[in-house]
């Protein structure tokens, strides 16, 4: 090498193996910076060749990947567990390894990341790389072109018109959908979304050329609007109105296709920016700057909506405007109703989803109040609903146990109540938490671990809670009939539960094939739309009586 510039490896990790790996790769310097400073360091060091990150902060990781990919520098993730590996996929880092790793392995990972990025930059000879290249240009799921392609296509048009409006569509909580239902479901939802957005834009004649772009951030889209010659650019009010209609349109479509539970999670925030063409600034920079502005605008819309929703929630708490849907849990063999899970929903449409409602409450520090209201409603409804020895399954947050008002029930026998604790909530102090559970157990309450097998904790931590019921994560049930790994995991869980003296519940059963499969595996209890939809207490009792 004749170059005098010193090749730099940037990292936030103090792992000494990195220095050796850099040596193998003939990189001159390893610069260690705190993760929060890496995005700036990437911009600042022209001689940076690669970035190795170990941070587990998703927003930092996202920023680092964005900065690095803007400069075509590969990012390699050094992860400490398999969560890192999922992050690697989610954030599209160029490669990853499980730390600690040997210097040789690290150098391999960096080398392959370098090769990949170089291949992307300098054109493709190899067929394999072409596949990846196309993937970079066209989002495989939505079939939408990505930003670099769109810039090439629109360069002339934008120069000609002299201005362009960039809309940034921020779809929030899509990661929640993945978390709850698994990636297959998220793929389907994204497909539906993209199709609906297309259809919405097609149906409107705005006298403009509209271009849709898939953005590398998975769940966001960019939309370039180039007004036709002689047509005025849309006003702020027009943009806001169009955004509102789009949200409604896509929301309705999602509800049609995927049901209310999914659609009520859905939200979209639109920010826009107006970019004027100037030959003095490089076209790409102009557009990327506009995209960033639009993204910021979308974020501030989101902020405003948050404030509005907190106000709505306070209203809900004041007026007690929540209602409860009861979702039957049945015996797999006979279809007999074994119990009901209480699902609390806010009356205002934007708080219909329990997930969203509790998310807002957590932000506003109102979880206890909301929990109390929901519990009181659920118990009141259950009183008339429960027949024979049917049980009521109540979702509780581990923090609820610290609420002095929790567990004081005079309306209903604690032995009829199963408290569901989600595996998703990190429980920090297990011994203390188990102590709390014990006092409840002594009074007759039973416990279920919700979302078991969602990957947040292993079987050990489930055993720790000594549950009476284990509710399998929905993602394990979705398409279980065609996935043998899911079948194996559920089999393992059934065996484990039997050892622990617990009963397994498979929720999210939507298809007959899924029901057949879990029955064959020996899951005793099932729940899902295939069997029953959630319904208000009166409606459930009515339907139940009607069948008898």
């Amino acid at each position, binding site marked *: 090498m004749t170059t005098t510039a010193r090749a730099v490896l940037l990292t936030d990790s103090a792992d000494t193996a990195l220095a050796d790996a850099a040596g193998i790769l003939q990189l001159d310097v390893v610069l260690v910076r705190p993760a929060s400073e890496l995005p700036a360091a990437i911009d600042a060091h022209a001689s940076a060749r690669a970035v190795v990150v170990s941070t587990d902060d998703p927003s930092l990781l996202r920023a680092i990947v964005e900065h690095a990919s803007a400069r075509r520098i590969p990012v390699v993730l050094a992860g400490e567990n398999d969560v890192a590996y999922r992050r690697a996929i989610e954030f599209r880092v160029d490669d990853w390894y499980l730390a600690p790793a040997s210097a040789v392995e690290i150098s391999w990972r960096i080398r392959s990341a370098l090769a990949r990025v170089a291949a992307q930059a300098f054109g493709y000879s*190899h067929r*394999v790389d072409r*596949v990846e290249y196309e993937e970079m240009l*066209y989002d495989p799921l939505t*079939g939408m072109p990505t930003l670099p392609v769109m810039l090439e296509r629109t360069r002339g048009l934008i120069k000609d018109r002299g201005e362009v409006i960039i809309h940034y569509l921020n779809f929030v909580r899509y990661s929640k959908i993945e978390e709850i239902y698994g*990636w297959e479901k998220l793929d389907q939802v994204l497909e539906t979304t993209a199709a609906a957005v297309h259809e919405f834009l097609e149906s409107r004649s705005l006298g403009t050329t509209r271009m849709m772009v898939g953005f590398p951030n998975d769940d966001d889209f960019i939309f370039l609007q180039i007004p036709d010659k002689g047509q005025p650019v849309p006003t702020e009010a027009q943009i806001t109105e169009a955004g509102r209609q789009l949200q409604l349109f896509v929301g309705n479509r999602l509800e049609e296709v995927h049901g209310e539970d999914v659609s009520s999670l859905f939200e979209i925030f639109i920010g826009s920016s107006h970019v004027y063409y100037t030959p003095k600034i490089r076209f790409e920079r102009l557009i990327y700057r506009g995209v960033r502005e639009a993204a910021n605008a979308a974020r501030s819309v989101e902020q405003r909506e948050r404030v509005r929703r907190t106000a709505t929630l306070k209203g809900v708490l004041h007026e007690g405007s929540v209602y409860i849907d009861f979702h039957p849990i049945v015996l797999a063999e006979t279809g007999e109703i074994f119990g009901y899970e209480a699902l609390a929903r806010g009356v205002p449409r934007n708080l219909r989803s329990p997930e969203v409602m509790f998310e807002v409450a957590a932000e506003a520090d109102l979880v206890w109040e909301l929990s109390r209201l929901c519990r009181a409603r659920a118990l009141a409804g259950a009183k008339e609903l429960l027949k024979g020895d049917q049980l009521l399954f109540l979702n509780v947050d581990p923090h609820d146990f610290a609420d002095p008002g929790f567990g004081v029930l005079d309306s209903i026998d604690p032995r009829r109540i199963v408290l569901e604790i989600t595996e998703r909530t990190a429980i920090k102090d297990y011994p203390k938490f188990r102590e709390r559970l014990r006092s409840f157990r002594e009074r007759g309450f039973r416990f279920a671990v919700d979302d078991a097998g969602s*990957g947040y904790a292993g079987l050990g931590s489930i055993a720790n809670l000594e549950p009476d019921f284990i509710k399998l994560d929905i993602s394990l049930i979705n398409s279980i009939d065609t*996935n043998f*790994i899911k079948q*194996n995991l559920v089999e393992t869980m059934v065996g484990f539960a039997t050892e622990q003296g617990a009963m397994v519940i498979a929720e999210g059963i939507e298809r007959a094939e899924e029901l057949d499969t879990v029955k064959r595996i020996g899951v005793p209890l099932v729940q899902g739309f295939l069997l029953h939809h959630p319904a208000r207490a009166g409606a459930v009792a009515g339907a139940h009586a009607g069948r008898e």
Partner: protein
Amino acid sequence: MDRSSAPSILVVDDNDDNAEIVRALLEARGFPVLVAHDGDQAMALFESARPSLVLLDVLMPGRSGWEVCRLMRQHPEHGRSVRIIMLTALAEWNDKQSALQTGADDYITKPIDLADLELRVRRNLALVTPHA
């Protein structure tokens, strides 16, 4: 089974001996088999031959099996319909969850039991919708 219409299988393993044993077994059962020795070769064969099923070793130099699995799943035309079985020495709860996350349909633990391999290949192929 008629050889020409039998679904083809792509075996990806950097260890030649392993790959050849698997090839011999599957060919003896009438399946057309392709072998790739690393991830890039696997992607090239995947693109050109469009196999119905892929047997994919996890630990390979270069692209790991996980990564290859993910790339295959993202293929716009063929990514959804292909069945992918991971070959792995690791079969703890978390490894299986990782396999799920990348989009694998099944897994076989190493060392490979040939009867088990055949069973799993057949039950996965049974789920492939026949192309017209």
